[in-house]
């Protein structure tokens, strides 16, 4: 549109699907830029219905009001960038009602904060390495920190037990699975640990390595619990493996997201293949039926029942997709290194506009319970049936650099954080206008300026 301005020379590099300026379905018509950080903002954590906290490379944690964009607290305690950030759910039994949160930093400390007062409750600084992930096991009321080793802590920040040194790269992701187990992603490996709680025999906590899964070809980037039955891992080379949560066996594996398809423009594909990170799986999200994967620049919707990709958007963004989230109304939001946030809608595809899905996608290795025979009819069905499609219904452009993460509030809109040090609060303009009117009349009433003419 602005080519006349730029001078007609360069094409916009993006190959991704674009949407014009007319976005009738995009509800976000108001934005508020929040400025407090001095470096990349990497983490956003929702505290309650109206508050969230942000943290990033500048080592500070800021608590915000999601409605007004007001900065509530600024927490200073870390000297280096923050590497992990979770909330610590308060126990019902505990008198302390204040919400707590845990931050880990590359200054090799972990701090427990009180988000209501901004007080630094406790600080642990006996780590040998940077803590890269944190997880709270609520049932046991302990939390685990993953760095080069795995440590177990209680609420008072006493070290309960720890593993030996695992690797120099450290644990990149941790999830909790049933039977007191946790899964840690360490490089290419998945290690399953079991936590042994104190019993009559031994008063000590212990953590035991149970199993190592070595099926990934490259570093595991993402690890999520999908449901009570399975968890999923995604690797740098685009392998997505669905694991059984109980016996840790592979249920399904997708490893050819990058497979060139004859229907697609070859040029484009070559370009794609040249960059391996174009197929790395950065993030997953899920709902009851589907897993949504951010694979390179694309988005894929994988149906758990059908065990196949039901919709995809190969170049959803101009650059790697970093975070995806599913909204209740069949909408999907993705953010990317290209600085944009896009809103997608999962639609049943119309008969005529069938987008050819590369067959390679649906190649599956039958492992475990899935057998090859089963996959054949599915494949046929796919080709005949109309899979869904991801329709772009809007994009949010505000950040000038990679959008690291976002947070969706049902009532207040969307919060995005970015490498440009900014946090942007995207709001539904119409709703905000109504709220402001409400506030106006409330104030009028308070001031006694409003009365009803009898």
């Amino acid at each position, binding site marked *: 549109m602005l080519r006349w301005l*730029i001078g007609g020379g360069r094409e916009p590099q993006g190959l991704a699907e674009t949407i014009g300026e007319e976005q009738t379905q995009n509800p976000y018509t*108001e934005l508020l830029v929040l400025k407090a950080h001095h470096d990349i903002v990497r983490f956003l954590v929702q505290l309650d219905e109206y508050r969230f906290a942000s943290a990033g490379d500048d080592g500070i944690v800021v608590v915000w009001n999601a409605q007004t964009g007001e900065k509530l607290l600024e927490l200073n305690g870390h000297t280096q960038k923050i590497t992990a950030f979770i909330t610590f759910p308060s126990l019902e039994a505990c008198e302390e009602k204040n919400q707590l949160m845990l931050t880990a930093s590359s200054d090799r400390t972990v701090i427990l904060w009180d988000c209501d007062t901004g007080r630094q409750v406790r600080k642990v600084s006996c780590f040998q390495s940077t803590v890269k992930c944190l997880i709270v096991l609520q049932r046991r009321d302990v939390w685990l920190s993953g760095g080069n080793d795995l440590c177990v802590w209680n609420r008072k920040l006493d070290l309960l037990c720890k593993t030996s040194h695992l690797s120099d790269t450290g644990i990149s992701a941790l999830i909790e699975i049933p039977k007191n187990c946790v899964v840690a992603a360490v490089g290419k490996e998945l290690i399953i640990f079991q936590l042994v709680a104190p019993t009559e025999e031994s008063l000590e906590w212990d953590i035991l390595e149970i199993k190592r899964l070595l099926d990934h070809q490259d570093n595991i980037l993402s690890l999520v619990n999908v449901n009570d039955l399975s968890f999923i891992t995604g690797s740098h080379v685009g392998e997505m493996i669905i694991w059984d949560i109980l016996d840790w066996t592979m249920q399904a594996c997708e490893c050819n997201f990058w497979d060139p398809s004859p229907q697609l423009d070859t040029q484009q594909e070559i370009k794609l293949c040249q960059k391996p990170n174009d197929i790395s799986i950065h993030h997953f999200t899920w709902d009851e039926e589907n897993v949504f994967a951010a694979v390179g620049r694309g988005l894929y919707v994988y149906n758990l029942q059908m065990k196949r990709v039901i919709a995809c958007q190969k170049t959803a963004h101009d650059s790697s997709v970093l975070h995806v989230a599913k909204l209740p109304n069949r909408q999907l939001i993705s953010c990317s290194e290209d600085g944009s946030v896009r809103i997608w809608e999962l639609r049943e595809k119309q008969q005529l506009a069938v987008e050819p899905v590369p067959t390679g996608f649906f190649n599956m290795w039958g492992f475990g319970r899935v057998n090859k025979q089963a996959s054949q009819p599915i494949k046929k069905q796919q080709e005949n049936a109309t899979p869904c499609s991801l329709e772009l219904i809007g994009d949010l452009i505000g950040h000038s650099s990679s959008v690291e993460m976002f947070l969706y509030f049902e009532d207040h809109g969307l919060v995005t954080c970015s490498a440009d040090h900014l946090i942007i609060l995207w709001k539904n303009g119409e709703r905000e206008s109504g709220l*402001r009117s409400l506030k106006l*009349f409330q104030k009028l009433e308070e001031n006694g300026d409003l009365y009803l*003419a009898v």
Partner: protein
Amino acid sequence: MISAPDVVAFTKEEEYEEEPYNEPALPEEYSVPLFPFASQGANPWSKLSGAKFSRDFILISEFSEQVGPQPLLTIPNDTKVFGTFDLNYFSLRIMSVDYQASFVGHPPGSAYPKLNFVEDSKVVLGDSKEGAFAYVHHLTLYDLEARGFVRPFCMAYISADQHKIMQQFQELSAEFSKASECLKTGNRKAFAGELEKKLKDLDYTRTVLHTETEIQKKANDKGFYSSQAIEKANELASVEKSIIEHQDLLKQIRSYPHRKLKGSALCSGEMEHTQDQASQPATTSNTDESAATDLYTCRPAYTPKLIKAKSTKCFDKKLKTLEELCDTEYFTQTLAQLSHIEHMFRGDLCYLLTSQIDRALLKQQHITNFLFEDFVEVDDRVVEKQESTPPKPSPGRPPSRSLEECPIPQVLISVGSYKSSVESVPIKMEQELGDEYREAEVTEMSSFDPQESLDYLDMDMKGSISSGESIEVLGTEKSTSVLAKSDSQASLTVPLSPQVVRSKVVSHRTISEDSIEVLSTCPSEALIPDDFKASYPSAINEEESYADDSEGAIHFQASVSPPELGEAEEGSLENTSSQADSSCCIGKESESLRVPLSTPAHTPSDQDGVVSIPPQRYRQKDQGFHVDFAVENANPSQDNSSEGFPAYELDPERLLASRDVSKSSLDNSDTTSNLSSIASTSSDRTPSSAYPPGPSSERHKKRAGQNALKFIRQYPFAHPAIYSLLSGRTLVVLGEDEAIVRKLVTALSIFVPNHSHHAKPVKHWISSPLHITDFQKWKLIGLQRVASPASAGTLHALSRYSRYTSVLDLDNRALRCPLYRGTLVPRLADHRTQIKRGSTYYLHVQSMLTQLCSKAFLYTFCHHLHLPAHDKETEELVASRQASFLKLNLGLVNEDAKVVQYLAELLKLHYTQEAPGTSHPTLRFDYVPSFLYKI
């Protein structure tokens, strides 16, 4: 859909740059004859009076005890200004009307000299011979070496326009009081310092004398005193006495501020003074307390001198100059204040009045006025509002009325200054050197035939002619508390209808070549002490009345309404007066002081029949704001005749009325429009708060208006660009030449709604790539286009954020912005407009925008539009109600609604904000396609 070829220019740039816009010639029958004096460079408003000076100026004079009245300085200090005007002569005139004989010295029965803290007196006088009228502000300064320790001074605002002086009396008085207070504070400081020094001298002298006496005593042990010793002893005694006297004086002068602060609740003096200081050089920006404490601290380094026994009170010594009398800082401040006054009252009265009304109206729109008003002025106003003094309790004035009672704007023009009656005002006329006192007396007549009184006055006047001087006191005002005490509530003599006064002046001119007309005096806050009054038992009592005793105020208001208008209203007047019980009516009016229209004072004898008409057009409302506005606005193509009165437009009745008024006041060459007189009646505020804008901002507006006009004529796509600004979409003006970009940005900034009082969201020039925060902060940006590849980032950012911006490319003469199909902007920015002058166009824009503001106000504050009527009502229903309101009731079509919606959001934010100006509003935008317009 408009694409580029459709909007290709109607014009070419070159044409416009070479020649100004040529409008088609009017047909013969429509042309208006030119003003006959136009060729002489005179404007229709110029007074063809005999004034010998080119424009108004301020004169400071002194009544020197050595040489008599003498001019000290003028502001502006430029001989061109006062030309051949005889300053010496006029100094004599103005110094001779000081009613407030300042009395200092040994009062009978007091052992020590007593300082009288006399209040300043304020007098209006006219000198028909010189063609000069002056507001004269007398004050006294203390000087230890002067006779009675006082030096009388006066500051005079001299103008050829009598009405200006009369109608701006209150403002002049307030402003000059500030200057005077500043001067006096500095003087007190200096005087105290002087006293300190003198005391040290005396102390030293005493010590010396004492030692000498002791030595003599010792040397002389014969038991008797030599004459020398006695002389020494006497000397010592007189020094002792002098010390006590001076200590007493010092105590008195130091006690001043406290006394004064205690004495009057609205002692403007010191407080305003310190507030003034804040804005002036930092040296004096101390608080009241510290000022009070260190005001009189003596300077440490002073070596006392021996004082000779003989006093040196003789005429050969040099008196201190004004600057020496006053602390230097205060003196400079005073000068600054005086030149401020000179700026403030520069220009035609009609202009001053209009801007005052304008300001007063704006002040009332405290919810919406931040949107388009110049924030500096608004700031001023806010400050003024805070420091505005409470209204003086006046028997003739109504207590401050609530908004619902009087929806008419509260504007006070000078009328207030005439409406008090007169009691015993001692007038001391000093002729030549003031040795001759001529005291005239008009006996008090509280109930007398007005005609007789007039005769009586005439007689008195004739009497004065015999002395070669005709002095006519046209009006005085006493402070209200004096008024309350005064038994006689008789109103003042001469009505101040311009015509009448003029005729009077003329008649006097025939009588006397050398006449002084004291038009009005006002020792306003000055309370003449009772003892002082008593010492002048034979003061002039200028009291007479044309009508009821208590109705002075009404006469003057009545007379302010222009005669022409009065004639036009004659019919309706008679009707009403026949219907209404006139006495009752008058009684009512005396309470409310609401005289919208009344009979002009054609002749003095007519004054008997003055009837006040109750307000008929300006319907009183019982709500703060009412929503039953007319739907006539729905016709967007209505003409602009009502634009001058946007505040009224929503009420059809008012609209009619204001239209009438505007027409009739247009007919009037007279500046006192009916509107203003009406407005003034309901005022309870001092109008001093209304500063006319400084000349610089005026020039700025003019230039902005001119450039905006040029933009509109040059660019056929000006409308969508202006729409972008009004609807809060940031407009980026892109260009290589900084000067051109800045000029256009300044011009277009008149269309940018403000977010708060504090800053206009305009960035004139930026060369770095734009960021998302910039769009939140600024709504109009001048952006540098660099030819180098470095600019790629800038342009890339611009294209990336293109959905938030409209881009006006000056170099390519192109605009990219959303489509506009409304009717509002074409009226606001008509490229075929007949307006030629920048300032006129600026005013046109202001009035249109004010109109828009009132629409936004209504939309914002209509309860039912924004809140669901019941729980089950859906959002869609509310939205459709809003849309239909905007369309049907406010007459907004298509994109115009968005403008009002945007303004409404700003209003909401501004109203609900806790601390105004703390945060930027959120960036609102629409996902609408943009179009490219190109010439």
